[in-house]
């Protein structure tokens, strides 16, 4: 309990302190606050993972009833990964915001809301009271919104922020409906009330309840078709916030879904299939759109959707495993999902930070204008490369481990006695592979075009590699990425805690040793790759010590006027893919034609728009506004009308019953005839 009070006090003090400090100190204080809170909460989490229990309950007043503070293995896991990314985010953020030294008010708001955000997220993982949960949930959303609109002098930033705010409010609405539903039937706000209720009702009902909560959390997590806020919010936010959002905040949705899976006991088979399908769709759709983006951060945002899809696949097969009582499938599924949650938060934040560094160096994240950054910013380039390899799920990096877990779950379960699942599983394997391949396509493009070759348009001023302070948090992440990639068995052990919460006692942990063995082999193999690579390179070095090395322009097939314009662009790189997917994705082209004898300069531009967003969000809202707009005659400024409204109201209220009665009378008359 004292821990929690400590956290609250720290947050209050820091938030109140920050506005009165000068710009440098603001940052340091914010770092300090985040560190303290992280350490405290992490201590609790680690204790819990080591087997202690953390549960307090106190009376929260007339409205809330009893509030339970509880950390179990699941929330402990999430707390840890949340803290890590928050720390890296603030560390990097302080450096990132150095440019804005002179705008003190802005910085105060930013750091203040960062601390609030961190605090709210801790609260989300601690609280087991639905109403209180909702409050901190919205607090988190609001503070995240304030973080996103840091560059609030731009209209599009505000637009994106509003979009995010409204959608997260919609998610709150869904969750609130669920809470009302439960509290109406049980009269209590504690989490366990949900399981009570779902025990008391039939499966379809509790599935509906689950859907209600799922919709709420899916908006936060960014499952298709609830993903539309991500591609707007991420590019608008400053880099460290994009990293935070994509690394941690959307994971809150995952946490919520997992929590609900623990509480609601519906037919897990149905739930699993539902989640699996929606996740495969999210994954494929996300990466498909990602390839066609020309804005680096937007591309990464779509990749978040894809990775959420992968996590969802893990959860889905976990549920199916629970449903059909396949212990291995269940373990692999949930373990894969949880591990991928961690992994994604690592490499995605790394990628966003790198993108941020690029932005600060050359003031654009338009892929088509970049190129050749590796020359001047080798560190950033390597970091981005590692991130890309990890996100493509290539060994020996961490992304592979979690995907491997999911794969082995799928392949392990392929041989079950229901045909439908076999089909389902093979199709989700297909989806997963497709996602992998597309991700590779996408990140070869991203890395290759942004960092390799030469600059595609003349970068105005001479930029350079940022200092150690900026690189340090990224290398922190890299260390973790490599550790997970090379020593997965350790993490499997850790993850056993939260995963076993999903398993019923019966089939507990036969699959753990099995997986640990496999993981040892995986780590062996991963190490082997590194050894091979270095070995070959070493041999090469030895072999070509005496060989003559000379440099010349790139071979232009005889055309020896080297110009950056000759390079392959991102658009042309994606062209071959674009042709394949044209039927399912809106691609708008603006093409200038040469129609005079003396050709004038013409341009070509293409951008892709999110079909789901257009059909699901924009169009309905347009119609709604149209409908609402029809009623603007009401306040038309003439007193007669104002009086008329009253008269009409009274008359209608008087006459309607009469009319209804007479209608009934006539109806009766006809009946008698």
């Amino acid at each position, binding site marked *: 309990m004292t821990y929690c009070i400590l956290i609250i006090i720290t947050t209050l003090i820091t938030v109140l302190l920050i506005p009165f400090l000068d710009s440098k100190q603001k940052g340091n204080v914010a770092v300090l606050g985040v560190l303290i809170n992280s350490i405290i909460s992490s201590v609790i989490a680690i204790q819990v993972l080591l087997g202690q229990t953390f549960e307090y309950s106190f009376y929260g007043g007339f409205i809330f009833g009893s509030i339970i503070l509880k950390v179990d293995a699941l929330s402990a896991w999430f707390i840890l990964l949340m803290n890590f990314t928050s720390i890296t985010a603030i560390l990097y953020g302080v450096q990132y915001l150095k440019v804005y030294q002179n705008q003190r008010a802005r910085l105060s708001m930013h750091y203040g809301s960062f601390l609030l955000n961190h605090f709210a997220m801790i609260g989300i993982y601690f609280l087991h009271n639905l109403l209180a949960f909702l409050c901190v949930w919205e607090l988190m959303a609001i503070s995240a919104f304030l973080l996103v609109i840091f560059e609030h002098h731009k209209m599009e930033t505000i637009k994106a922020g509003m979009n995010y705010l409204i959608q997260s409010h919609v998610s709150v609405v869904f969750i609130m409906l669920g809470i009302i539903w439960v509290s109406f039937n049980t009269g209590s706000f504690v989490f366990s009330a949900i399981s009570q209720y779902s025990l008391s009702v039939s499966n379809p009902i509790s599935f509906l309840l689950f859907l209600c909560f799922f919709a709420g959390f899916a908006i936060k997590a960014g499952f298709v078709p609830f993903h539309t806020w991500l591609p707007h919010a991420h590019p608008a936010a400053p880099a460290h916030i994009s990293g935070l959002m994509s690394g941690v905040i959307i994971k809150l949705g995952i946490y919520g879904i997992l929590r609900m899976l623990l509480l609601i006991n519906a037919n897990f088979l149905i739930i699993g299939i539902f989640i699996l399908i929606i996740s495969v769709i999210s994954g494929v759709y996300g990466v498909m759109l990602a390839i066609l983006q020309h804005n680096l951060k937007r591309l990464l945002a779509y990749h978040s959707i894809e990775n959420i899809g992968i996590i969802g696949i893990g959860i889905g097969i976990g549920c199916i495993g629970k449903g059909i009582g396949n212990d291995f499938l269940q373990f692999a599924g949930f373990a894969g999902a949880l591990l991928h949650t961690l992994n994604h938060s690592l490499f995605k934040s790394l990628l966003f930070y790198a993108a941020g560094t690029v932005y600060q160096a050359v003031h654009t994240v338009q892929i088509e204008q970049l190129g050749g950054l590796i020359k001047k910013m080798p560190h950033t380039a390597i970091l981005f490369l590692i991130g890309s390899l990890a996100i493509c799920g290539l060994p020996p990096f961490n992304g592979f481990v979690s995907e491997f877990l999911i794969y082995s779950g799928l392949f392990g379960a392929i041989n079950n006695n229901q045909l439908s699942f076999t089909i389902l599983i093979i199709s989700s394997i297909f989806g997963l592979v497709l996602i992998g391949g597309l991700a590779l396509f996408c990140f070869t493009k991203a890395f290759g075009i942004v960092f390799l070759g030469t600059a595609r348009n003349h970068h105005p001023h001479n930029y350079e590699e940022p200092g150690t302070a900026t690189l340090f948090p990224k290398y922190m992440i890299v260390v973790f990425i490599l550790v997970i990639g090379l020593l997965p068995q350790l993490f499997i052990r850790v993850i056993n805690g939260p995963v076993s919460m999903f398993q019923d006692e019966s089939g507990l942990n036969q699959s753990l040793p099995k997986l640990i063995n496999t993981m040892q082999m995986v780590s062996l193999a991963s190490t082997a790759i590194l050894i091979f690579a270095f070995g070959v390179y070493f041999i090469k070095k030895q072999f070509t010590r005496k060989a003559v090395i000379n440099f010349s322009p790139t071979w232009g097939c005889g055309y020896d006027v080297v110009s950056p314009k000759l390079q392959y662009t991102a658009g042309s790189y994606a062209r071959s893919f674009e042709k394949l997917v044209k039927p399912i994705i809106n691609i708008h082209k603006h093409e200038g034609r040469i129609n005079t004898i003396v050709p004038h300069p013409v341009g070509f531009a293409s951008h892709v728009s999110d079909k789901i967003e257009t059909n699901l969000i924009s169009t309905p809202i347009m119609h709604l506004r149209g409908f609402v707009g029809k009623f603007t005659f009401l306040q038309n*400024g*003439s*007193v*007669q009308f104002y*009086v008329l409204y009253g*008269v009409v109201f009274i008359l209608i209220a*008087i006459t309607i019953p009469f009319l209804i009665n007479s209608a009934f009378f006539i109806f009766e008359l006809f009946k008698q005839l």
Partner: protein
Amino acid sequence: MTNILLIAFTISLIYIGMANRLYTYISAIAFQGVILFGVAFIELIEINTLNLILVLLETIVFKTILIPMFLNYVIKRNKITREAEPFLTNFVSVVIITGIILGSFLMSNTIHDTHLRKIFFVVALSALFTGLYIIITRRKIITHVMGFLVIENGVFILSLAVGNEMPMLVNIGILLDIFVSVLLLGIFVNKIGDVLKEQDVSQLRNLKD
């Protein structure tokens, strides 16, 4: 006797409906005042004299003499055109007012109430809605005031219907009557007359969304 008076009152409503010129309205309102005096006298004969006097003062002095004069004064002072300028033609107005009367009559028939004398109810209701109707369909602000006065008369009749047990309500009604009329006309004469020359509501339509 009361009934005859009340019927006369109803006729005056229809008369207002077909009237064209503002002076006709004013005279009609004055006429209604007289009728109200009669009705009040008959109805409230048995209540204590103080109340009675108050009521009679109100009907005769205020409703019949002061307000019409006041209206005349306003019309002259602000050089308001003498036409009522309704949105709808008088024919329609007459039809609708008749409809109102008919409707309130029908409605009163649904009441199974020995206690209340329906005629009061009918007249009051029709006066109310006629007044509202006038407010809604006439263009001039002063006609709004007139419509309001008609409503007030209706309320007065209704309060008479219950008043013989509860004089307090009648007094309150009178209070309202005097109070509001003074307020409205006060604003009217002092301000609107100064600011706006032609009493067209359309000039008071700046506040809107």
